[in-house]
């Protein structure tokens, strides 16, 4: 499904964020990426859908190297890759419905989307996804008036609206409280299991990793240093990934 080969990223200011990262993601997997802040997790996700441009290596998505694409071919690939963010990144002052429909922009004409014209099918689909993330009845609420957890669920519905083959989640629960974190993770799990969407998720809390991940990769200083089952991360690996002085914090 997704194959990353020798991925490199050097920022214009000279910061070397990713160093020769390679791994594969089979279809239907729930892959979690762990590592300290600044280890290159976010950069790696953004190199997949080209919010950042990799400076070396290949990202093969369904056999297509995304790192070489431009213009409409790039937008086509992006539309097949959903993404959710730590700070939700919803459109402020717009309703839940409008936000979810914005996931369909790549299939809507420019003028039609600006005038707010959407096909009845698209609206029905948006309604369906709003119900899947448990926000029925909130369609007409303004998205920025919802709670953090609800906003993240709107973001999930927006990503689903793209009908993605893969969902990238960049620390989706890092700005949520523990209870809400679990609820959002449950929805991601549901998306993964029931809709068969492959998920790549950056996480901080190992307890969440053990509970939701099928497989874990760890980055440290831009290098891939671990690739394996979540339960195999023992004390020793933990210290290697997070440094000698780190102590595990649990979230229940």
């Amino acid at each position, binding site marked *: 499904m997704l194959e990353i080969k020798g991925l490199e990223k050097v920022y214009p200011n000279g910061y070397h*964020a990713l160093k020769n990262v390679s791994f594969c993601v089979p279809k239907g997997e729930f892959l979690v990426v762990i590592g300290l*802040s600044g280890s290159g997790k976010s950069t790696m996700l953004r190199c997949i859908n080209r*919010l950042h441009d990799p400076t070396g290596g290949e990202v093969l998505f369904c056999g297509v190297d995304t790192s070489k694409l431009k213009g409409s071919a790039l937008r086509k690939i992006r539309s097949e890759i959903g*993404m959710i963010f730590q700070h939700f*990144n*919803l459109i402020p002052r717009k309703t839940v419905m409008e936000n979810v429909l914005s996931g369909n922009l790549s299939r809507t004409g420019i003028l039609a989307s600006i005038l707010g014209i959407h096909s009845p099918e698209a609206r029905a689909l948006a309604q369906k996804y709003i119900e899947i993330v448990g926000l029925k009845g909130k369609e007409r609420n303004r998205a920025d008036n919802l709670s953090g957890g609800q906003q993240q669920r709107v*973001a999930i519905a927006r*990503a689903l609206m793209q009908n993605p083959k893969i969902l990238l989640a960049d620390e989706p629960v890092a700005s949520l409280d523990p209870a809400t974190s679990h609820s959002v993770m449950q929805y991601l799990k549901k998306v993964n299991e029931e809709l068969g969407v492959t998920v790549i998720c950056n996480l901080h809390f190992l307890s969440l990793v053990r509970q939701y991940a099928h497989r874990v990769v760890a980055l440290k200083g831009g290098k891939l240093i671990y690739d394996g089952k979540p339960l195999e991360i023992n004390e020793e690996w933990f210290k290697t990934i997070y440094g000698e002085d780190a102590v595990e914090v649990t979230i229940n």
Partner: protein
Amino acid sequence: MKQRVQKKPNKYIQGCKAFVLDTLTWAYILLVGYKIVYEKMIIDERYPEFSWEQPLLALYIGLAVAAILFFTKLSLGRGLFGLIKFDENEGPASQPFAWVGYLLIVLTFITGFYVSQISMKEFLSESGLEGARRIFKALFSPNWAVFEEGLFAAIETIYMAFIATAVAIPIAFVLGFFAARNLMNTNRLAFFCYNTLRAFLNISRSIEPLVWAIIFSVWVGIGPFSGMLALCIHSIASLTKQYSEQIESIDDGPIEAITATGAHPIQVVWFGVVPQIVLPYLSYTIYRWDINVRMATVIGLVGGGGIGNLLMQYQGQARWNEVGMLVILIAAIVWTMDWASSKLREALK
């Protein structure tokens, strides 16, 4: 996660800048000290001569003084660029180089005093006070016969300002995107556009609307149209700058998210940028209209039509009672606009 490597400023470049600053400082102190303190205050010369030799000489001597004092603690440039080390607890204000700065400020103050020709004698002279009494008396007994005429002129002013703002809005709206650094630093061509537009805007903004009005009054003739054009040019430049600054300060998150859905760049701007800027834009625009009404009055003085024009006519004939009436009208308009625009902007928050 973006991580920026802090670039250390080059010590030699900083040193060069410091030296230039030192040279200019000493040259200024010497020149102003000689011209004002010696020529004006000590030997009290009536009409001091000007020649290019004096500033040039001051520059040479300044260069020499700067060179001699550059490595002492009296170098203001090295002090300001952080090249002089001193005790952190003392702070820069009590350092030797700061005294050079104080000398600069005191000299400038004295110069300003002389250049402005401040004179208490004239301010409080008998004939002067008599003139003031006369004009204030006339101003406070306005001639209501010109009320109607003034009102029509005022309405002309308000509408002129409104049209100037309205025409400027769509142009500034479009230009604002091209003048926003965060949208335009994607490639070299875009960045070139950004720089050209910025330079163009800065030039047109640095020309006062008053000057534009003079230009247009020659171009399209004296009247409200020339005033409206002048205001329009100025509004486009100012609004574009304010709009683009608003765009530069928005949250990148929604842009990222909309881009990630595979949307077209135009859709990214419409859904990622526009919802974040609508309210501040409205607020700026209303404020601009408010400013334009006030400016339109001033512009009328040079032939831009409206109440300013009328004011100029009566002032030229020294008909102070009529002028008094117009001043009251202008004050009423400015106050009303100010009040209305602040209420409107408050409601938008």
